[in-house]
């Protein structure tokens, strides 16, 4: 049973085909309006995430399907001690596909091993968030026309930022991508991502603490939030949370066709004054996320033989 747990579960060809489907959904939404009629998506959200859950639900509804699920683990059998594996087996009897978010890293993989229906990882702690990566890829491809030959700057929390790790993993499979890592020393990209992904794939990258110095080089700027929930120590969080704030002034040296992305929610790392700048693409990214999730649900249900 094909599931999506890690972005690398899909080949480059599969990712490209998925993005093609998403583009086609955007161009021809009516064609897909009843593709998942009488099919059910179960959204199992063991930790809160309004945005991702609503995006999955909107995606399924726009495909003509329906949604069951929960958004608070307190009201579920897991609060009584049920294992993730048992939950997945039970939900397999009710639904056709699962989207799962869980605070424990690897929980969606455990679910996929136990379920008899496809499982989509909708975020597992600080580990993976592959559908956000698909949304990032679709947005970049739509804005830049290609996923090859461009320079992307990752700014902010590169240590705990799972979206950053996943996107780097995904982009490392395309030609001519150059990476600029912009973060305070305490929040640098983990060395294993550098050695296992960037070095191994021969990706050119530089590290800096100075966003403005590298701004003119960038074709894409991926901003991230310093996430309070990833810190054990509040003192560290308070010290680092305002490390990088993107303002109109900092954009003066940027390229005219820069594409600014952010996985959202933002706190204060992008000034609202930038929202009306045509280079701000983070709300387009939200829309892309819904369309790419539609494409993903279609792909997995088709491969599971649940739709034609």
């Amino acid at each position, binding site marked *: 049973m094909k599931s999506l747990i890690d972005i690398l579960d899909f080949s480059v060809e599969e990712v490209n085909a998925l993005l093609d489907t998403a583009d086609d959904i955007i161009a021809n939404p009516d064609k897909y309006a009843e593709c998942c009629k009488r099919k059910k998506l179960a959204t199992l959200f063991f930790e809160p995430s309004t945005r991702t859950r609503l995006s999955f639900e909107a995606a399924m509804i726009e495909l003509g399907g329906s949604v069951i699920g929960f958004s608070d683990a307190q009201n579920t059998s897991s609060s009584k001690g049920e*294992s*993730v*594996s048992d939950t997945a087996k039970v939900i397999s009897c009710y639904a056709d596909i699962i989207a799962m978010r*869980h*605070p*424990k*890293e*690897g*929980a969606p*993989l*455990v679910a996929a091993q136990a379920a008899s229906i496809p499982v989509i990882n909708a975020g*597992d*702690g*600080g*580990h993976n968030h592959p559908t956000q990566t698909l949304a990032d890829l679709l947005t970049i491809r739509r804005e830049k026309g290609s996923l090859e030959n461009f320079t992307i700057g990752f700014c902010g929390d590169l240590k705990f930022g799972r979206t950053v790790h996943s996107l780097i993993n995904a982009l490392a499979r395309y030609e001519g991508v150059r990476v600029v890592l912009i973060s305070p020393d305490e929040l640098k990209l983990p060395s*294993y991502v550098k050695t*296992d992904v960037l070095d191994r794939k021969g990706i050119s990258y530089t590290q800096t603490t100075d966003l403005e110095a590298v701004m003119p080089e960038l074709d894409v700027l991926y901003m991230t939030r310093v996430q309070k929930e990833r810190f054990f120590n509040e003192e560290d969080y308070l010290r680092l949370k305002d490390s990088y704030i993107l303002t109109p002034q900092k954009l003066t040296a940027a390229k005219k066709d820069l594409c600014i992305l952010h996985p959202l929610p933002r706190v204060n790392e992008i000034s609202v004054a930038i929202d009306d700048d045509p280079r701000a693409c983070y709300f387009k990214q939200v829309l892309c996320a819904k369309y790419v999730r539609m494409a993903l649900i279609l792909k997995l249900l088709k491969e599971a033989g649940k739709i034609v």
Partner: protein
Amino acid sequence: MNIDSIHNGFVIDHIPAGRGMKLYELLGLDALDCSIALIKNVPSKKMGKKDIIKIDADISLNLDLIGFFAPDVTVNIIRDGVLVEKKSIALPEYLTGVIRCKNPRCITSCEQELAHKFKLTDAENHVYRCIYCETKASTEQ
């Protein structure tokens, strides 16, 4: 030093010097009542010094554990006093139930009866990562 030869059992050879005792413990050899010899710091042309474990019993050896903890060891299988097979132990692709993931955020920390499983991600540097959370395994556990 005289150690009786083995009739039916194993000789685990080319263990990096100093790791023999730990491997003895990990393999649970202290629970066996057969003859077992742990020989430390044996001069070796290839390694300088090495450890050797001799087990005079036909037990089920966890080769994955041996391969992970002491790669490049040789396991000699003895039957009726004769060497019948010499196995070079390579790094196993997966390790299941051999070592534990120490990441408190990993699902293995709370999921009932879930085996801890690691995948070889970098053979050159002997790096194993948890299949669930990708935390790097340590040979020091």
